[in-house]
C-alpha cells in the first residue's frame, strides 16, 4: 500500500498567472455588471414583475447545487470507505467550498438591497425555507473546512470519518433545502411537487461530479500528473449513473404532473409549445446535456478517451445550466393559474392573457454577473490547489489500485 503524496499545483508561473488574470478579468466584469445593476436598479435587467428571478438565479442555483455535488467524491471516500476515492477528497472539499462561495455571491449581489445583507444575517423568519438555507449554506462552509482540516492535518485523521459523515448528511439537507425553495411555491404549478427535492439531489450529484472531473483532468494535465484508468473510469461510470438518475427523475416529474388533468398545459408548455423553453429542454438539457454525454460515457471506444470524457463533462455542465434556465425561468414564464377553469381575456398586469407566457430576455449584465460567479469559484480553486497540498501527486493505477485492493 502506497502513501498518497499531495503536492501544490506546479504550473509554470506565466501560465498560472495568466490563468489567474483571465479569471480575475471575468470576475471583474461580473463585479462591474453588479455595480451597474446596483446603481441603476433592476430595470436594466430583463427581469420584470412577472419573471422576478432571472439569469443570476440560474447561475447561482446551479453553482450551489453543484457545490454540494462536488463534495460527493470525498463522501464516497470517507463515508463509504472506498479508499480509491480518498486521494481526491481534498480537491472535492475545496471545490465544494469554491462553488458555494461563487453561487452565494451571485445570489447576494442580485438582491434588490445587497447592502442589507446584515439584515438577512441578523433578522430571521424561521418559517422561511430561505432563512434556513442561510444556515445550511454557512454551516456547509464551516463543516467542509473542518472536514478538509481532518484530512490535511495528521491530528485530525481520526475525525475524518465522523466529520465526513456529518458533511454528507449536511449536503443532502442543503440540496433538499435548495430544491425546497421551489417546492414551497404552491402557487406556481411548475414547482408544486415533491419530486423537486430528489430531482435537485440527483442534479447536484451529476453537475458537481462533472465539474469535479473537468477540473481534475485539467489540473492534472497541466502539470503532467498521471491519472490511471482505474480512477478515471470509476468516476466516469459514476457520472453516467448520475446523469441517468436525473433523466429518470425528469420522467417521474412529468408523470406526476400528468396525473392530474389540470397540469396538461404545463407539460405541453415544457415539452411542446413553450418556445425557447421547449427548445432548451429538448435540445440542450436532454439531448446535448444528458443523452450525448451518456452516449460518450458508455461508448465502447469513446469512453476510454480522456478528451471525450472531458467533453461529456462539459456537455453535462451546459445541460445543467439549461436545466436551471428551464426550471427557474420557464417555471415563472408559464402563466400562473389565477382563475382555474377560466381564461384571462384582459389584464393590466400581464397575467397570462389567453395563456400567454411571460416575456423574458436575459440582459448582458445579468449574464456577466452569473459568469463572474463561476470565475470566482474557479479562482478560489486555482489559488487553493496552488498554495495548499490538495492535488495528489499521482493517480496512476499502480499508485492507487493496490491501495484500493488492500482495503477491499
Amino acid at each position: 500500500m502506497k502513501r498518497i503524496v499531495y503536492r501544490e499545483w506546479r504550473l509554470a508561473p506565466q501560465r498560472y498567472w495568466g490563468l489567474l488574470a483571465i479569471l480575475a478579468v471575468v470576475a471583474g466584469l461580473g463585479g462591474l455588471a453588479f455595480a451597474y445593476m446596483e446603481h441603476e436598479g433592476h430595470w436594466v435587467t430583463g427581469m420584470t414583475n412577472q419573471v422576478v428571478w432571472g439569469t443570476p438565479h440560474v447561475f447561482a442555483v446551479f453553482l450551489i447545487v453543484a457545490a454540494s455535488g462536488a463534495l460527493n467524491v470525498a463522501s464516497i471516500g470517507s463515508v463509504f470507505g472506498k479508499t480509491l476515492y480518498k486521494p481526491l477528497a481534498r480537491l472535492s472539499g475545496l471545490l465544494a467550498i469554491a462553488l458555494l462561495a461563487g453561487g452565494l455571491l451571485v445570489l447576494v449581489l442580485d438582491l434588490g438591497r445587497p447592502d442589507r445583507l446584515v439584515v438577512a444575517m441578523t433578522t430571521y423568519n424561521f418559517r422561511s425555507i430561505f432563512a434556513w438555507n442561510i444556515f445550511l449554506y454557512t454551516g456547509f462552509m464551516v463543516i467542509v473546512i473542518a472536514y478538509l482540516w481532518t484530512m490535511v492535518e495528521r491530528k485530525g485523521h481520526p475525525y475524518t470519518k465522523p466529520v465526513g459523515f456529518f458533511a454528507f448528511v449536511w449536503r443532502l439537507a442543503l440540496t433538499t433545502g435548495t430544491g425546497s425553495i421551489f417546492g414551497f411555491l404552491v402557487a406556481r404549478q411548475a414547482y408544486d411537487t415533491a419530486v423537486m427535492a430528489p430531482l435537485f439531489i440527483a442534479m447536484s450529484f451529476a453537475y458537481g461530479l462533472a465539474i469535479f472531473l473537468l477540473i481534475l483532468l485539467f489540473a492534472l494535465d497541466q502539470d503532467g500528473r498521471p491519472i490511471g484508468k482505474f480512477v478515471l473510469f470509476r468516476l466516469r461510470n459514476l457520472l453516467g449513473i448520475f446523469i441517468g438518475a436525473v433523466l429518470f427523475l425528469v420522467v417521474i416529474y412529468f408523470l406526476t404532473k400528468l396525473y392530474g388533468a389540470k397540469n396538461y398545459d404545463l407539460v405541453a408548455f415544457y415539452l411542446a409549445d413553450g418556445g425557447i423553453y421547449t427548445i432548451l429542454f429538448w435540445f440542450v438539457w436532454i439531448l446535448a446535456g444528458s443523452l450525448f454525454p451518456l452516449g460518450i460515457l458508455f461508448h465502447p471506444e469513446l469512453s476510454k478517451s480522456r478528451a471525450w470524457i472531458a467533453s461529456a463533462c462539459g456537455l453535462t455542465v451546459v445541460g445543467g445550466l439549461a436545466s436551471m434556465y428551464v426550471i427557474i425561468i420557464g417555471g415563472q414564464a408559464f402563466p400562473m393559474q389565477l382563475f382555474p377553469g377560466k381564461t384571462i381575456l384582459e389584464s393590466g398586469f400581464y397575467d397570462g392573457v389567453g395563456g400567454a407566457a411571460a416575456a423574458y430576455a436575459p440582459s448582458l449584465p445579468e449574464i456577466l454577473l452569473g459568469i463572474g460567479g463561476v470565475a470566482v469559484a474557479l479562482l478560489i480553486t486555482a489559488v487553493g490547489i496552488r498554495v495548499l497540498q490538495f492535488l495528489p501527486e499521482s493517480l496512476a493505477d499502480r499508485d492507487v489500485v493496490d491501495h484500493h485492493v488492500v482495503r477491499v
Partner: protein
Amino acid sequence: MTTNKHKERVDTSRRGFLGAAAVVTTVTVAPGVVLHRLAVAEPRSEAVTSDVRWGMLIDSTKCAEGCDACVTACNRENGLDLQKQPKGEDADQQKKWDRQAAKWIRIVKVKDNLTGHESRLPMMCQHCEHPPCVDVCPTGASFKRADGIVMVDRHTCIGCRYCMMACPYKARSFIHETVDTKLTRAPRGKGCVESCNLCVHRRDNGTPSTACADACAAQGQGAILFGDLKDPEGPLMKKLTTLSSRQIREDLALDTGVRYAGV
C-alpha cells in the same frame, strides 16, 4: 376629453397641495429628517389591534366596462403615478418598463371555459389570513398586521423577491428603478418589494375606506366595499351574509380578506 380635464384639474390641485405640505421629497438626507418629523408628529398613538380585520367585497357584476377609476385612484393615492421610466425611449424598452413598473391594483377580465360567462374585476393583494408571502420571507419583512393587513416593512426587505414567487395572486411589485419622488404616506425605494396595503395610512389616520373603493363609489359603480370582517353589524359583513361570494384560488385555503361576488 373629460377625463383629460379631470386629470389636469386634479394634478394641479395636487401639485399645490404637495408644494405647500412638502410631501413630495427627493432622496437626500435633509428631506429624510423632514419625513421623520412628520411621521413622529402624526397622531398615531393607538396600537393596531386584532379587534378588527380589514377586508373587501368586490362585486364584479358592478364593475363597469372601460372604467379604471380604482386603478387611477390607487396610483394617485400611493404615488404610483410618480414612477418614471428611467431611460430608453424605444418601444422595446417601453414595453419592458411597463412590465417592471409597480402596480398595486389592476383590472382583469376572465371568461369561464365551460359557460363562457365573462367577468371583470379589480385584483390586488388579497390580504390572506395565512399569507404565503409572509411564510417565505427570510427576514420577516413581509408581515401581517394585527388588523389583517399584509404589507412589507421597507426597512428589512432585502429585495430577494421570494414573496413575489410565492404569491398566488401576483399581487406584488418590485421597485426596479431609483425613486426620486415619492409621497410621505407611501414611501418607496429601489430594490424593495411592495403591494396593496389597503391604504394603511388611512387606517392609521382614522380615515375611512380605501382610495379604490371611494373612486368606484364616486363613479356610481360601488363595486368595491371596504370594511371590517370582524364586525357582524358592519356593512361589509352584512353584505357578505346576503350576497354569495368566493375567494380567488379557494383551493389554496388562504382565507383571503378580499372576497369576490359574481365571478
